[in-house]
């Protein structure tokens, strides 16, 4: 049964999210296609929330009933690259397959082009085998631009990555955050 989408929200992380954070950030299934390895301790999670998430330009918890079940971030470029930003996300396995990440991405779209006035391009990189994430991007209106061969290290191995983009001028669905 699909979750009532009005229960989904985005907000900044707090240190008090640490235990919910560990439930998904400590799960190898969640982190399988991400650049980072699963978190192994509460201390590591607290350090991350304090030193990475809170000072980040735009890092948000995906919440259900205000409890953290995942993350989504937008990381803008600077200088000649300020027209573009990277989007990334992850979600607890128990909530997969219900359109929650897609909803979170659409919520983010309704905010970030206004929050970052120089931004005209959102881009995402996905591993070839990460079909679920590719579907999230396609459903949100992103276009696949190509395969970048041996583009970067992901968990210690040099990998090919698909690149997707969405322009502020493309047609896409937005969802307001409650």
């Amino acid at each position, binding site marked *: 049964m699909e979750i009532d989408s009005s229960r989904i929200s985005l907000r900044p992380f707090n240190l008090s999210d640490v235990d919910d954070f560990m439930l998904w950030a400590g799960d190898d299934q969640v982190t399988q296609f991400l*650049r980072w390895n699963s978190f192994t301790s509460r201390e590591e999670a607290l350090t991350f929330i304090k030193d990475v998430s809170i000072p980040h330009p735009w890092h948000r918890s995906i919440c259900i009933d205000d409890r953290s079940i995942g993350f989504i971030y937008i990381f803008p470029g600077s200088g000649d690259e300020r*027209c*573009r930003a990277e989007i990334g996300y992850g979600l607890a396995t128990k909530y997969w397959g219900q359109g929650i990440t897609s909803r979170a991405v659409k919520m983010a779209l309704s905010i970030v082009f206004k929050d970052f006035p120089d931004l005209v391009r959102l881009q995402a990189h996905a591993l070839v085998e990460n079909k679920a994430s590719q579907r999230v991007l396609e459903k949100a209106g992103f*276009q696949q631009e190509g395969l*970048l*061969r*041996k*583009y970067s*290290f992901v968990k210690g191995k040099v990998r090919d990555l698909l690149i997707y983009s969405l*322009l502020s001028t493309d047609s896409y669905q937005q969802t307001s955050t409650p």
Partner: protein
Amino acid sequence: MEGSSCKSTGEGCVNEFHEISLRHLDLSDIDHFMVWASDEKVTRFCTWEPYTSKEDGINHIKDKVIPHPWFRAICLDNRPIGAISVTANSGNDKCRGELGYVLGYKYWGKGIATRAVKLAANTIFSEWPHLERLEALVDVENVGSQRVLEKAGFQREGVLRKYLILKGKTRDMVMFSLVSSDPRT
């Protein structure tokens, strides 16, 4: 070029009296540097504006060229007529480097840039064993440079829309790559 005829195809389109080579650029090359660096036809798709003063050129060589991780003059009979460079990345991006090049306008259309790119690619993959990917981003309107990379054996991977701001405007850029396992001549 002094009465020698050039075929329109093929790399290293110079006859047996002329040789294309790469070497370090130094301050004594300033006058050669100014020939291409002051030409707006050459800098049209570069992030920088043409240099107008020799002093600015000297400072550029001192501050940007000499400390650069990999910067070479493209030479015709040991005389600099352009430049080619590879920029390194760090961390997770260490496996890739970005290629850039410029060539004096009167030397365009003779296969010289293609030859320089091939020389640079062969050299960089052996000097940087950690490098697996050499990439180049080319403005969609810069068809001449796209042809150079295709002739040099790079693969066109796609168009990255509104990827960069170049001289105040967002530009679509074509992404090209050569990976260490690609065939090279």
